[in-house]
């Protein structure tokens, strides 16, 4: 059955939208909050054969899971936080600042930890051999950056506003503009890979990846806020987006040096 679905003629947007709407209706009727994406979300066709069908095994974290990898100054050059200076000239597009804080469930800053991002260029094209979208590559834009959070859990990137791009989930499928984020916490269990979106994107309602988070308030937490206080005169516009990792504080484990 699923194999058939996976190989059937591509659906059109109306079919995908009606599947999204049906799942949203079932979710509302059931009344059980789901604030992480539903792994079994058929409107995102690539998930059909890539989701566990058995409930995860509940377990208390042990050993290494109670801590997270450490990244330091040696790992990340501060210049890697500026995606507009990686080549010889300025990339094309709207220059933006993206900043925010990484905190845990109790609002405590996640300090000196690694944040990685990647994204399409202003025309909606990734530098990746699998991206065949016939939009121009920008020789001055690689679309990847890294930084370490500061003492307050803050991160800060300068980049170009990515464009929306077409993909092959269904006929005439377009992703809302987004920046991929990869974040570590203070425990292995907080590891997060997600996507940051831009306010007011008309593609939100149509996008099965965004809609896979069935709780509307939860998915809105992926949308950044335009912040004029971050906008620099005649230079760049600013977006703010805070990241809250799962779990609360655990008494910090003492250094386990040998």
């Amino acid at each position, binding site marked *: 059955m699923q194999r058939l679905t996976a190989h059937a003629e591509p659906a059109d947007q109306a079919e995908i939208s009606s599947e999204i709407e049906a799942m949203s209706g079932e979710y509302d009727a059931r009344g059980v909050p789901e604030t992480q994406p539903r792994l079994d979300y058929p409107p995102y066709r690539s998930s059909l054969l890539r989701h*566990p069908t058995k409930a*995860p095994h509940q377990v208390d974290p042990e*050993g290494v899971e109670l801590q997270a990898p450490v990244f330091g100054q040696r790992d990340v050059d501060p210049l890697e936080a500026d995606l507009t200076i990686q080549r010889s000239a300025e990339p094309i597009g709207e220059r933006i600042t993206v900043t925010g804080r990484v905190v845990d469930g109790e609002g405590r800053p996640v300090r000196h930890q690694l944040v990685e991002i990647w994204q399409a260029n202003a025309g909606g094209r990734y530098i990746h051999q699998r991206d065949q979208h016939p939009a121009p590559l920008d020789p001055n834009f690689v679309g990847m950056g890294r930084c370490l959070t500061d003492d307050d859990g803050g991160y800060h990137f300068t980049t170009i506003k990515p464009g929306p791009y077409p993909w092959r989930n269904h006929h005439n499928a377009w992703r809302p503009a987004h920046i991929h984020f990869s974040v570590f916490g203070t425990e*292995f269990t907080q590891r997060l890979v997600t996507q940051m979106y831009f306010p007011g994107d008309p593609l939100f309602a149509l996008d099965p990846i965004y809609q896979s988070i069935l709780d509307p308030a939860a998915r809105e937490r992926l949308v950044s806020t335009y912040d004029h206080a971050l906008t620099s005169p005649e230079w760049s516009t600013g977006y703010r987006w805070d990241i809250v990792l799962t779990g609360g504080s655990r008494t910090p484990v003492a250094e386990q040096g040998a």
Partner: protein
Amino acid sequence: MKAATPGQTVGPFFHTALPYSGDCQLVPPGRGDAVRLHGRVLDGDGIPVPDALVEVWQADELGVVPRSGGSIRRDGHTFTGFGRASTDREGRYTFTTVVPGSVGGGLPFFALTVFARGLLHRLFTRAYLPPGDGGTDALLASVEPDRRHTLVCTPDGRGFVFDIRLMGEDETVFLAFPEH
């Protein structure tokens, strides 16, 4: 408790950003005590997943949890305990590492995180070293007997094999932690 930021799929284009030189070599391959932790990531039809990313986080041979940076720019000497491996066209991932020691007396394991295009949120699992005679572990004991083997590495000549089945028959046991 503040509401957590939801996850999203890693998508198909992470290769431009997440892999880096030496990402899957926690120790240099030539080191005397180096072992290989490798396996395949498979989908619900048993087809290899060529666009998955596996991360490992582990203790050193003595069971000490590393607290050193340097996973991205490795110096060839410091064991950081973290590695990252993208699957190849046959769905294979490989780490060069050391055998983790026991942390606090439990059966040693490699903590793994799995990401893939089509997988909407990361998955956590443990790749346990094979329990010796009489070896036990509370988690393994709590898993249904017919699924327990999905959490245990198989030794091969140079290390350990650990396949990750995302779905279906023989699906790997994935873990959920309280409040996460």
